[in-house]
């Protein structure tokens, strides 16, 4: 299966990965890779500037935690982030639904 760049969808995927609780960068990256079946071809480092930007926009917060004796920085959705995720998910569903309708009926 060809792998695709995921520019444009990165923010939505990152917000989705944090929907059910805090995760650190490696866990976020693995979550997206595993659930997407490896469809997206992206360097792991790509997520860090995006996480930094989303945190700056107030959609995420982050803190250092101790995980099995290792210090890891975990990210989680803020209330604003939860709301932004819901909005962007609806937007994506409308977008995907529109494309699917054209493909099916053409």
């Amino acid at each position, binding site marked *: 299966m060809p792998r695709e760049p995921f520019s444009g969808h990165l923010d939505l995927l990152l917000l989705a990965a944090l929907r059910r609780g805090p995760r*650190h960068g*490696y866990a976020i990256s*693995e979550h997206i890779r595993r659930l997407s079946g490896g469809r997206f071809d992206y360097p*792991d*480092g790509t997520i860090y*500037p995006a996480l930094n*930007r989303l945190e700056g926009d107030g959609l995420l917060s982050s803190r*250092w935690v101790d995980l099995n004796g290792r210090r*890891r920085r975990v990210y989680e959705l803020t209330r604003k982030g939860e709301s932004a995720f819901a909005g962007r998910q609806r937007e994506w569903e409308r977008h995907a639904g529109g494309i699917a309708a054209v493909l099916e009926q053409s």
Partner: protein
Amino acid sequence: MSRREEFLDQLAARLAGSDRARERLLDEVSGHLTDAIEAATDLGVGESEAECTAVEQFGDPAELATSWNTTQARRQRAGQRRAALIVVTTAAVTGVLAVTQHARGGSKETPTPPARHGGHAPEAGYTRWHAHQGRSPHRPPPGRGS
């Protein structure tokens, strides 16, 4: 020097911003590489191969630094704008209060209540109590958790 150390050095050399912000990213990336290498070695991949794969999978340090520097600069500008807004708002509120007080005849001095004999001013008592407890009455600034 291992591939991982080489990668971290290349990234560190290109990162802009405060020492704290740079250190934060480098610590995060280091932890990420540790987890990725460990996940691979747990599956039976050799240490050296796992390290090379993790570093390659992480991408180009120059591209990461450029992208991260852009977001960090944007965050710093936003922080400066917020600080400037607080200063302007504080100045405006102070001005309004001064005008209001003046309109109410604030030029007259508020009478000072008579001092109680044998009493201590609240601040003096607060300070004295903390001195007795061996503590400062002034709390340290709250930690930022980073």
